[in-house]
């Protein structure tokens, strides 16, 4: 029998639901992109859904925990409670998207109310911000934990280093996941860092470091859960490196010709969703019928969300002048 780290059958099926929701939602965004209904870029998380969902599943959102995704962690914010219709509205630049058409894709969320906060595009900047969010949580005696995602590329930035260093000195309740997905745009990880592993960067900060198979959902859940418990009990920061692979180009326009074909084939064999479903069936947690039922439920939900997002209005042009500062009432309306 497989070790499930305390996850019940219902929770395992819940994770399966989020894995499928993530993959199917992105496939829907691809379809909408091809219909020119997605205005901006499209960045796939194919192959990275497992770690995104599993890590976010280790948080306690009722406790006020906050997850901060990068562009390939749509699965994480779905777990935290983001609605597919809101994600679609963001991609489609609709006036009733969470940012009212001002920002793209999964760049949205309020850490006080949503359980997640979207990134900004300057990689690394969210690490100091998450340090501040967890610092505020500590000052407000909320006992919340923050989970921040950063990439192999993002972990080269100065903001990442300053944020990690400050959070570690303060022993803040922060878990930082470095996703090593092989490439930052076209740059392979070995051109990004000379460190033996990206988790070794933890030595510089004096925080806990660990490397885990990012395509093993249960292993990522276990490692994150332990890190979250460490954080909540005052044990400080954990830097968790998850080894995974970006199965698509940087964005939809990028055919990733720079990635060796054999590498993609190798990683296709390790697909985290297929692997998790195989585990569920082999261990009697689910039948093929259960999985099919989840896929059908996901499709229904995405169909409804797509119709709703598609029918949503574009923003009023003159609204561009409003809401920069408090006082014009724009955001209260």
């Amino acid at each position, binding site marked *: 029998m497989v070790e499930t780290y305390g996850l019940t059958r219902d929770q395992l099926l819940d994770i399966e639901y989020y894995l499928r929701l993530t993959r199917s939602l992105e496939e829907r965004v691809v379809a909408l992109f091809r219909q020119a209904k997605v205005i901006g870029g499209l960045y796939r998380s194919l192959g990275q859904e497992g770690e995104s969902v599993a890590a976010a599943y280790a948080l306690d959102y009722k406790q006020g925990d906050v997850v901060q995704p990068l562009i390939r962690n749509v699965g994480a914010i779905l777990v935290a409670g983001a609605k597919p219709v809101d994600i679609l509205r963001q991609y489609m630049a609709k006036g009733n998207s969470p940012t009212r058409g001002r920002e793209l894709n999964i760049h949205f969320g309020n850490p*006080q109310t949503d359980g997640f906060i979207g990134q900004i*595009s300057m990689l690394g900047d969210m690490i*100091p911000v998450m340090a*501040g969010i967890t610092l505020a949580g500590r000052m407000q005696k909320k006992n919340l934990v923050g989970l921040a995602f950063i990439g192999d590329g993002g972990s080269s930035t100065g903001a990442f280093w*300053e944020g990690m*260093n400050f959070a570690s000195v303060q022993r803040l309740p922060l878990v930082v996941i470095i996703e090593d997905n092989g490439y930052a745009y076209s740059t392979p990880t070995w051109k990004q860092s000379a460190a033996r592993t990206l988790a070794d960067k933890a030595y510089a900060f004096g925080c806990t470091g660990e490397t885990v198979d990012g395509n093993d959902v249960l292993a990522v859940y276990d490692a994150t859960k332990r890190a979250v418990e460490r954080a909540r009990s005052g044990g400080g920061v954990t830097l968790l490196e998850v080894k995974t692979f970006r199965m698509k180009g940087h964005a939809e326009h990028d055919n990733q010709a720079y990635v060796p074909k054999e590498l993609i084939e190798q990683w296709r064999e390790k697909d985290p969703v297929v692997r998790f479903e195989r585990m569920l069936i082999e261990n009697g947690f689910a039948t093929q019928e259960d999985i099919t039922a989840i896929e059908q439920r996901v499709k229904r939900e995405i169909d409804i969300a797509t119709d709703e997002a598609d029918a949503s209005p574009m923003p009023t042009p003159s609204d561009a002048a409003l809401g920069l500062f408090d006082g014009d009432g724009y955001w209260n309306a």
Partner: protein
Amino acid sequence: MPETTYIEAITQAMAEEMARDERVFLIGEDVGVYGGAFKTSYGLIDKFGPERVIDTPISEIAIIGAASGAAIMGMRPIAEMQFIDFITCGYDMLVNFAAVNRYLFGRACPMVVRGPAGGGTHGGPYHSLNPEAMFMNRPGLKIVAPATAYDAKGLLKAAVRDDDPVLYIEHKYLYRRIKEDLPAEDYIVPLGKAAVRRKGKDLTIITWGAMLYVALDAANELAADGVDAEVIDLRSIIPFDEEAILESVAKTNRVIILHEAPLTGGAGAEFAARIAEKAFDYLDAPIKRVAALDVPTPYSPPLEAFALPDKAKVLKAARELLAY
């Protein structure tokens, strides 16, 4: 409170706001045990403890980033830059994260970033910055620059209570050189309101920060020649008091904009453009700008004095305007 210096006014504002509102805290380098490089936060750690007066690593990105993160969680941080020059190290955090919270995401980010600015103290190129212009073209930040002890206290209190991020530029030349009696009771100076420091009818000098005293000196000398200059202390750069500027120009018909930052692309260019757009018909002469040379602020006193604006440069501009 009798004879309060500019720097004491800042300390008082922080202490009073921290006592008034437990969400207010101070974060920066050497602000705690040491009391700040200029002793601006002297004594605060004894009153409020190390949880609310946080000594940080040398990390402007982390200071501004963590302050921003705490602010969007409902706290009201004051982030100190040891010298405002180092704000460039955290520039990205301030303009790309703190400043955009409301416009992009509908989140309040009530925080203050403050620190000692300005030259005239032989600090050299890395300890003399006047940073306002580099933030004016990045919407989402309010910018204030007090010139008096009264305003130093009142503007800082207003900035702490404001629901948006405020860059508070304090001029270190003024720290211990000026003092005045301050009211014992709580008060604020509203953001966005200029003050007329000297009424006049012949020409207007628009300025802020330590240059206020250069403007007043020049105005006094002009008065000896029978020229009555009006001096406007802008106090807030963003939002700025356009009404006060236009009203004064409509009255005097001649205007000098005086600032300590370099001329090209300086804040004065924006104010000059507004005046040209909205008060062209009132002007009897071209708009003059008196500002620093377009060079990094040099260290050696004769070089620094030559590079920065002074009374003689203002007087020269004024006499050219009057002779036009």
